[in-house]
C-alpha cells in the first residue's frame, strides 16, 4: 500500500487514514459552487469488463451528489475492436445512467482507438481528431497525441493564441509526465510544453498509464494522469520526486470543478474511496513561483 498511495504536500488535504474510513460514504470534497463548471474524467476505460462497469456505477452515484454536465475521455475508449457491439459493451452500457441523464462525453483518441471514432456522435468530436470547446470560463483543447503532426501543432497554437478564456485545459492520451511503465512522453513534451507555457495552459489531463498520478507543477502547469477507468497496473508507479499524489491499487476516475479562479479536483477509486483531492489556482497566479528554472524530470 505504501507504494500504491502517496499523498502530496501542497494541494492534497487528505488526512492520513481518514479517506479510508469515509470512503464507503462516498465523500464529496468539491465545493459545489453555483454556476461552476463541473466535469468527470475517465481514461483508458473501454475494456467492457466488470471493473469498467463498476467505475461507471460509481460515476453515476457521484453524479447524484455532484451533478456534472460532461465527462472528458482520455483515450483508449474501446479496447480490442471497433465492432458496433464494442461501442455498446464498452461505452453505452457502462455509462448508460449518465447518457440517459444527458451527460455529454468529449472523447480523445488513444493508441487503441480507430480514428473513425470521431464520427460517433456520442463522443462529441465533431468528426475531428482534435478539437476545442468552451464551457463557462474554461476552454478545453482535446488533442490527438497518437499523431501529433505539424498541422495539429499549428492548429493548437492558433487556438491557444486566440482563446480568451480564463482557464485553459488540455487533455489527450499520452502523458508528458508520468512515473509508470510507459513513462514520460518526452517526444511529445518537446513539442507541446513550450506551447502550454507560452499560452498559459493551467492543467493537463492524460491517460495511457493505468493508474492515477498527480504531478507536481511543471513550469507552472498541473498535470494529472487518470488512466485507470477500466484497468489498473497495480504497483506500477515508480518512485519519483515529481509525484504529488498517486494511486495504483485499483481503478479510478476524477471529478473536477472550476469556479472563478480555482480548480478543485477529487480522484476517486472504483469503490468510492477518495484517493486524492485538492485545489489549484489559475495558472497566471502561480506562474512566477512554480517550477521556474527547474529542469523537467524524466
Amino acid at each position: 500500500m505504501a507504494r500504491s498511495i502517496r499523498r502530496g504536500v501542497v494541494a492534497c488535504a487528505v488526512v492520513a487514514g481518514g479517506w479510508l474510513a469515509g470512503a464507503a460514504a462516498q465523500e464529496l470534497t468539491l465545493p459545489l459552487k453555483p454556476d461552476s463548471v463541473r466535469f468527470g474524467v475517465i481514461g483508458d476505460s473501454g475494456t467492457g469488463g466488470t471493473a469498467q462497469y463498476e467505475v461507471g456505477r460509481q460515476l453515476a452515484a457521484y453524479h447524484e451528489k455532484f451533478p456534472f454536465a460532461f465527462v472528458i475521455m482520455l483515450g483508449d475508449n474501446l479496447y480490442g475492436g471497433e465492432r458496433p457491439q464494442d461501442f455498446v459493451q464498452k461505452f453505452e452500457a457502462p455509462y448508460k445512467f449518465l447518457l440517459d441523464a444527458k451527460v455529454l462525453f468529449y472523447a480523445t483518441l488513444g493508441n487503441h482507438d480507430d480514428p473513425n471514432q470521431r464520427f460517433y456522435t456520442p463522443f462529441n468530436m465533431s468528426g475531428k481528431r482534435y478539437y476545442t470547446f468552451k464551457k463557462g470560463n474554461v476552454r478545453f483543447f482535446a488533442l490527438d497525441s497518437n499523431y501529433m503532426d505539424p498541422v495539429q501543432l499549428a492548429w493548437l497554437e492558433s487556438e491557444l493564441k486566440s482563446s480568451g478564456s480564463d482557464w485553459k485545459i488540455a487533455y489527450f492520451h499520452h502523458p508528458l509526465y508520468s512515473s509508470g511503465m510507459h513513462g514520460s512522453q518526452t517526444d511529445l513534451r518537446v513539442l507541446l510544453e513550450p506551447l502550454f507555457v507560452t499560452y498559459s495552459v493551467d492543467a493537463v489531463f492524460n491517460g495511457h498509464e493505468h493508474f492515477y498520478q498527480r504531478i507536481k507543477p511543471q513550469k507552472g502547469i498541473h498535470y494529472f494522469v487518470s488512466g485507470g477507468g477500466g484497468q489498473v497496473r497495480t504497483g506500477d508507479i515508480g518512485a519519483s520526486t515529481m509525484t504529488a499524489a498517486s494511486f495504483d491499487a485499483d481503478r479510478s476516475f476524477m471529478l473536477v470543478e472550476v469556479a472563478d479562479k480555482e480548480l478543485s479536483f477529487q480522484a476517486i477509486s472504483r469503490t468510492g474511496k477518495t484517493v486524492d483531492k485538492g485545489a489549484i489556482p489559475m495558472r497566471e497566479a502561480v506562474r512566477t513561483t512554480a517550477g521556474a528554472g527547474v529542469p523537467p524530470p524524466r
Partner: protein
Amino acid sequence: MTCLIQSSVVGVCVVASLAWPAAGAAQPRVTQQAAVMADFSARVSAYVDLTKTATQGLPPLKRTDDPTEIASREVGLGDAIRAGRAGARPGDILTHETARHFRRIVKADFRSRPRHGQKVMRDEIPHFHPKVNQTYPSEWPLATFPATLLTKLPALPDGLEYRLLSEALILRDVKANIIVDFILDVF
C-alpha cells in the same frame, strides 16, 4: 471528402525534403532528394485521385450515433478502394528510392533515442506482417507515431497517415482503414 489533397502539400513535401538531415550535403544530393519527394507526392496524389473515383457514389463517413453505420461505411470505402487498385503492389507509392530515404530517417531517429525510449517505442508497435490493401486489423493498436519523427517526414494529405509496425513503416488510409503501402526494415 476522403483524402483531399492540396497543392500546398506537394510543396510542403518538396520543402521537407530540402530540410532533411542531408540538406547540408552536396547540391546534387539535395536535388536528387527533392526529385524523389516530388515523385512521392505525385504518387500520393494519384492515390488520392484514385480513391475519389473509386468511392464516388458511396455514402461518406459522417457523424452518426449508430456505430453500425460507421463500420459499414468504413468497410464499403475499403472494398471500393481495394477494387480500384486491385493490382497494387508494394513499392507503388513508397518506391525503392523513397524507401531508402525514409529508412535513413527512421533509423537515425530511432538510434538517437535513449534506450528506454527505444524500448517504449518498440513495445507499443504491433507485430504483424503488412500487405498492400489489407484492412488494418482492429485487434492491434495503432501505435503512436513519434511526434518528432513525424516532423522529419513529408506531410501527407488529410486522410493518409504514417504508422509503424514491428519492422515496417506503413502508409494507412484513415477512413478506409487499409494499408496502402509499406516499407520493411525501418529500424
